[in-house]
């Protein structure tokens, strides 16, 4: 009953990617290349960070044929649970680790060490045919708690809103709940608010974007890296008086976009060896250039 292949379909593409990367890097054990770095480690966690980590891992393995990196993206919560249980070397996360999680990690002899590797402008997307152009945080909160259920109430067509969210494994789920549903930092903040019971919880970000691309009434919140031509990002207004800001690298960097967030790596203590070399590469100018390519926001 518990042998079901949970999320294998997320791991499989990563594995295929890895296999391709290894094949490209040439025969292992053929000597030469890199600075003799070797070892293998895993990166588990955020679905949002996965496209970025995969690119980094692929490039790093090309330069260092002795290193093999396995990337999988079941969700930040799952990644942090893996870090606590000692089953991953790097946990990728799209939300900060909670105090309760730090406590249970320490109880297991794991000391979480946090490294910010990029920034994400969490985008709110709708179908391109949807006439709505901008929403306030308060409106978004009302939509995700099912208090607003028709697009007409926010200036759109007279159609029901199909509200889509990630499942509880996702760091994006938790970040969006705290910063948008519960309106953290606004005068209207209310920590008792929860996602409404009509919200669809989907197991991957890609699936949510696909549903928005074919459903004119759907709304979803993917990371900036997942926004495609087939969906339309909305301008977000922190309050009713401030101007709407579209998510982009520039607006996230200058701080004007209201729902930007850090993308993080967690390791057990300060990283060493191959893990250290990999993270140094991610933070280098070359690594940060990849961040823009994938569609996220590089560190300054």
């Amino acid at each position, binding site marked *: *009953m*518990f042998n*079901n*292949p*949970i*999320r*294998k*379909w997320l791991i499989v593409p990563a594995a295929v990617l890895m296999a391709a990367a290894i094949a490209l890097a040439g025969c292992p054990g053929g000597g030469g290349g890199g600075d003799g770095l070797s070892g293998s480690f895993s990166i588990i966690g955020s679905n949002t960070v996965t496209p970025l980590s995969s690119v980094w891992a692929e490039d790093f393995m090309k330069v260092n044929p002795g290193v093999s990196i396995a990337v999988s993206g*079941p*969700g*930040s*919560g*799952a990644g*942090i*649970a893996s870090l*606590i*249980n000692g089953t991953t070397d790097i946990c990728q996360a799209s939300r900060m680790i909670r105090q309760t*999680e730090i406590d*249970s990690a320490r109880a297991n002899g794991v000391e979480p060490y946090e490294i910010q590797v990029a920034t994400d402008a969490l985008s709110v997307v709708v179908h391109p045919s949807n006439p709505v152009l901008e929403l306030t945080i308060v409106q978004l909160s009302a939509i995700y708690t099912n208090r607003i259920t028709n697009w007409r109430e926010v200036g759109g067509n007279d159609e*029901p809103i*199909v509200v889509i969210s990630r*499942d*509880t*494994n996702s760091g994006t*789920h*938790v970040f969006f709940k705290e910063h948008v549903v519960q309106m953290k930092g606004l005068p209207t903040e209310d920590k008792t608010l*929860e*996602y409404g*019971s*009509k*919200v*669809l*919880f*989907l*197991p991957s970000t890609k*699936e949510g974007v*696909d*549903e928005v691309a*074919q*459903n004119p*009434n*759907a709304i979803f919140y993917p990371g900036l890296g997942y926004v495609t031509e087939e969906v339309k990002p909305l301008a977000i207004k922190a309050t009713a008086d401030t101007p709407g800001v579209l998510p982009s690298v520039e607006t996230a960097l200058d701080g004007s976009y209201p729902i930007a967030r850090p993308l993080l790596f967690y390791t057990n203590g300060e990283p060493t060896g191959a893990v250290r070399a990999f993270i140094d590469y991610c933070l280098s100018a070359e690594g940060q250039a990849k961040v823009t390519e994938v569609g996220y926001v590089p560190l300054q």
Partner: protein
Amino acid sequence: MLGQQVPVATAEAGPDKGLRRRWRIGEKFIEGWIFLAGLLAIVVLLGIIALLLKEGLPVFLDTPPWEFFFGTKWYPVSEPPTFGIMPFFVSTLWITLVATAISVPVGVACAAYLAEVAPNKVRETVKPIVELLAGIPSVVMGFIGLMLLSPLVQSAFNLNTGLCGLSAGIMLSLMSLPIIVSVSEDALRAVPDQFRQASYALGATRWETIIHVSIPAALSGITAAVMLGVGRAIGETMTVLMVAGGALAVPLSPTEPMMPMTAAIASGIGNAVRGGLQYQALFAIGLVLFVLTLAVNVIADRVLERQKRKFAR
């Protein structure tokens, strides 16, 4: 067959006592081996039950059983968390109902055609193809449901979204179809030909023979087939996780997005810290699933028993 008969004949006829003793020792060894294999299955089953109880029951120290089974709110990552599994339970029932309602009539009809009507050549080609359907990985079925079926269901029923229990049920019916067809067809073919010949001799048409003779005679096998299909539908995870929509409301109709028990476990177990409250709650859902499939098996057993008595009369 032949190879077995020869030593028996020698042992019985020949005066060679050494060979007979060796034969006995071999017999005992095989007996013990089979006994151990049987025991292993029971030990594994008991182990699973024990694990489910050990990991699942502690949740009731925090959430009273009444709240757990009839609660309609599932917020595992909130402070404080609430665990009510009513939405998952009702979703599982809806999806299984849809899957069964489609796969049983289609599957039994297909089996009846293959066993009673189709020429040998057709049967020998069609049956392996139907069985091939069982080999399609559930993830692939999920993709097909996501990309092809859900937009169709959405426009056909004029729904807000095609990611709903109905789409999931239709995909699951495709997945349990091969089991139902294959096992029912075997059961129908096992019905002695004299039954049919007697029916034809009494002037019954082919249709009347299938409906009144063949299917009733094979009913025990068909019931087993249906129960296997239902079991598959209840336990299937990946497809429903991808296609059912995953809403937390108690679904009032199969056209609403929903999250069955298997999907709830699969989507929650990843971020559940071992021994935590959410972990225990998920194991308790596993326990409920286990009891549900057990109930299906017990009911199937009863039906089979009644069927046997009916035939004995």
